[in-house]
Each structure stands twice: as structure tokens, then as C-alpha cells.
């Protein structure tokens, strides 16, 4: 039995070209695009589910498209989800700001500090 998961992601022959000045940018971009792809896959799956629900007469796409939160509690739950989601995605930006506000020592320096404690 072949390791189909590992083999599917194999590299092809030849040194890989990098186009950005810093290869790290390219690496992150590739990971981001793969996730963008998976989000599109998920969106298409959701579209299939909605259409099947409509064909079976359970929920129409129009009902979904026109749906708005009906109670204060629903409104709050939705907005909380968005808030948390964005915070999770943009975590590093927040952390860089915190660092700027509160310059920190490196962990190696802290290790030296602790060594004396």
C-alpha cells in the first residue's frame, strides 16, 4: 500500500523558483492559498447542502438568503463569532502590537535572568 497522502504532495524535479525577496513570504502565501482553496471547497459543499435541502422542500435558498437574526441573543452570538474569528486569524498582528507597546526581552535573556533567580 502506497502512502498516498505523502506522495500526493511530492515535489517535482528541479530547484523550486522563489519570486519574493524573502522565501518566507512565498511559503506563507502557499499555505494561505491552500487554505483559500479549502474554503472554496467548503463553500461549494454548503451550496450543495442548501440546494438539496431546497429540492427536498425543507429549507429554501431564499429563506437562507433573507434570514436575519430574530432575537437579541442571536444577534449577539453571531457578532461574537465574527469578533472571535477575526481575532484568531489576526493573532500575530495583535501580538506584534502588544510587543511594540511593551518591549520584551528574548526568552534566552529571560533564561539568563531566571538562572540568577
Amino acid at each position, binding site marked *: 500500500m*502506497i502512502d*498516498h*497522502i505523502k*506522495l*500526493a*504532495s*511530492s*515535489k*517535482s*524535479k*528541479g530547484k*523550486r*523558483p*522563489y*519570486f*519574493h*525577496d524573502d522565501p518566507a*513570504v*512565498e511559503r506563507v*502565501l*502557499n499555505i494561505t*492559498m*491552500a487554505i483559500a*482553496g479549502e474554503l*472554496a*471547497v467548503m463553500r*461549494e*459543499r454548503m451550496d*450543495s447542502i442548501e440546494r438539496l435541502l431546497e429540492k427536498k422542500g425543507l429549507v429554501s435558498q431564499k429563506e437562507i438568503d433573507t434570514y436575519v437574526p430574530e432575537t437579541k441573543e442571536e444577534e449577539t452570538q453571531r457578532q461574537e463569532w465574527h469578533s472571535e474569528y477575526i481575532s484568531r486569524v489576526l493573532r500575530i498582528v495583535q501580538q506584534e502590537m502588544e510587543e511594540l507597546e511593551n518591549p520584551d526581552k528574548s526568552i534566552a535573556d529571560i533564561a539568563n535572568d531566571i538562572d540568577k533567580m
Partner: protein
Amino acid sequence: MAKNLPPVWNKIAKHAMMPETNHDERARYNFLANLNKHLAHVSQGNKMAFEKRVEPAFVKEKERSIASVEELNEAISKDSHYQIWSSLRRSTMEMRQQAGRSIVLRQAEELRDKAAELNKGKATLVLDANCKVPEYLLAVDNHLMPGSYHTELIEGDVTPAANYDSGIFVTTAGLLGRYNDGGGKAITSWVKKTYPDFAPKRILDIGCGMGHNVLPIARAFPNAEVIAIDTGAPMLRYAHARALDLGVTNVTFMQMDAAKTIFENESFDWIQSTMFFHETGGKSIYKIMDEVYRLLKPGGLTLHIEQPQYTDDMSLFEKFIRDWDALNNSEPYWSKMHDIEPIDLMVSSGFKKEDFMQIGAKAENDLDDGTQKADEPEDHGRSPIWNVFGAIKN
């Protein structure tokens, strides 16, 4: 309605060898076809970036214009639009390979068994374990396809062909039609129209791959004996099984190097190749053309569908962007083949200058859902607009 939408992947023609796909695998292919298309359009920005800032900055600094493709490459490689476009395009091609391989490798054994069942006991599939894969194919994985056309991950493997067949529809956004055979169809129509009395008895297709372009030829000449050769055993197993399932029985698929075939002198009426020479090598291309000349009967026809040639009136930028795929989508010989004039290649093998012919061709597409009709910018290296060169041997 939005223009230029690629067809959904499930429009691809189904046959017994087409790999099974689940919902998310099809969705992934749909995403990638759209991403390809998007980048083909956004790519027009490269020209703008070149004209508006790369070239002016060069001229300002050096007080002269850009003199070569190499200089252009160096200058544009620092441009931020070119950088993001290139990295996205490269990433898209790698994702397309990953997506295709993740579909076919999980069912490698089932695909192998399907091919074996269809191919069992048939004299029209001739594999040769002693056939050596040419050095030029071992040196690179063309179009970033890990393992290229020949690598067998299991005994009797057909996955390289299954990956190619299911994925080329994504890379070309369906522009080759439901059977990916727009090239074969175009050349068949041209030959029928140009030579209405031509009745070839024996036809050779060289570098046939998964056989997609030879089938329209075999269908158009059902009484002809058609032989299709390739060095990749996985491609031939798949091609033969696919052809039989599609009802084409007059093609014999044989494992053989086009530079040294076993056929007799002057034994074919028509020798065809489609998108083959740009994946060969600098010495082999001449050896293969010598072989074409040797095998062709007097009065016989040979045609070769290739990428558009460079012309003298082509701008440096156009030459550069045409080479992007060659270098960054790993089809390296294509960047060298531009230096060979097809007429010189053919004359060096014995064809007469006055017998040389060159025509333009465009894929014939059987998709009729309106998604393929809108005019769009040429996606260099992907658009099914080709140069066809050849000759009648006299």
C-alpha cells in the same frame, strides 16, 4: 452574467478509466480552474508593470533600453506585481498536481485493476520492458508532475495518466473540450478539408501520452491501421484501456522511443505529433525528425502541433512572458526549442524546403454551455492556439 467562467469539472467526459471523484475533489478542481483563469486575466498587469515602471526605471538608470530577455528577466523579477503573480501562478500549478495526485493515488490499485481488465489478452497493447525512458524525460518532471509520465508507484501503475487526464481540463479551463482532444480534432478536420482524397492506410502518432489526440484521427480513418507510441508504460496502459472503452479499436499502443522505432522504411502514410517536441531534447529532436523522414512513405504527410513560434516582430516582453511557463512550470526544453526554425529542423532530416508547410490551429471544443465563447486575453502557454508545421515527403 460574469464572462469567462470555466466549465465545472463534472462536464468532463466520463469513461471507464476516469478516476472516481468525490464532491470535495471536484470542488477543488473547480477552485483551481477558476484560480487559473483569474491569474490569466490578472497577468495582463505584468505588461502594464513592465511598461509603466520596470522599463522606465531601467532606462533611467542605464540610459538605454532593455536589450535581451535575460536583462528583462532580471529587471522585472524585482517588480512587486510580477512577484506576486508569479508566486501565485506557481502555487496554483503545484496545487493542481497535488489535487490530481490526491485523487488518483488513493485509488491507484482500483485504476490499475480496471486497466488490466480492459487490456487483458489484447494484441493492441504492446509494452516493452527493455524500452529505456529517454534522458530528456528523466531530467525533469514536465509541468511539475512528480514522477513524470513513466514512474510506477505500484506494478502496472496507470496513475500518471489518470492524473493527466483528469487535470488537464483544469489547467486549460476546459478549452480542449470534454475529451481533452481539441488538438487531435482540429488537425483531423484540417487534413480532411485540405486533402479530401487522402486515405491513409497506416498512421503513426508519436509521443501519444494518454492517447487523447490520436483517437479523433483513428475515428476519422476507421479503416486505417493506427499505431501510437510512447515510452511511458503507465500512459500506454491507460491510453489503451481508455480507447477501448470509448469504442476505438483500430489503434495499437506500443512502448517505443520515437528516435529509434522498430518500423520499416517508408511504412507510414501519415506521421503526427501533438504537443510533443517541446518535451524532448536538443539532440533528440533531430533524431526523431530523422526517424519521421525514414518512416514516411513518398507522398506521405507529417504534421506536428506545437506552441507558437517566436517571431522577429515579437516584443522582448512577449518572448519573456511566453517563456514563463517553460521555466517556472517545468517545460524547460520549450525555452530552447524557440531557437530552432521548424523548416531547418525538417530540411536537416531530408524534407525539401518547398514541401514545408506551417499553419495556425485552434482547438475544437465540444463544450456548448456558453462558458467558452467570450473573447479573452491569450494565456501564454495555456491557450489552445498553436503552430502546426510539417511537410509532404517528396
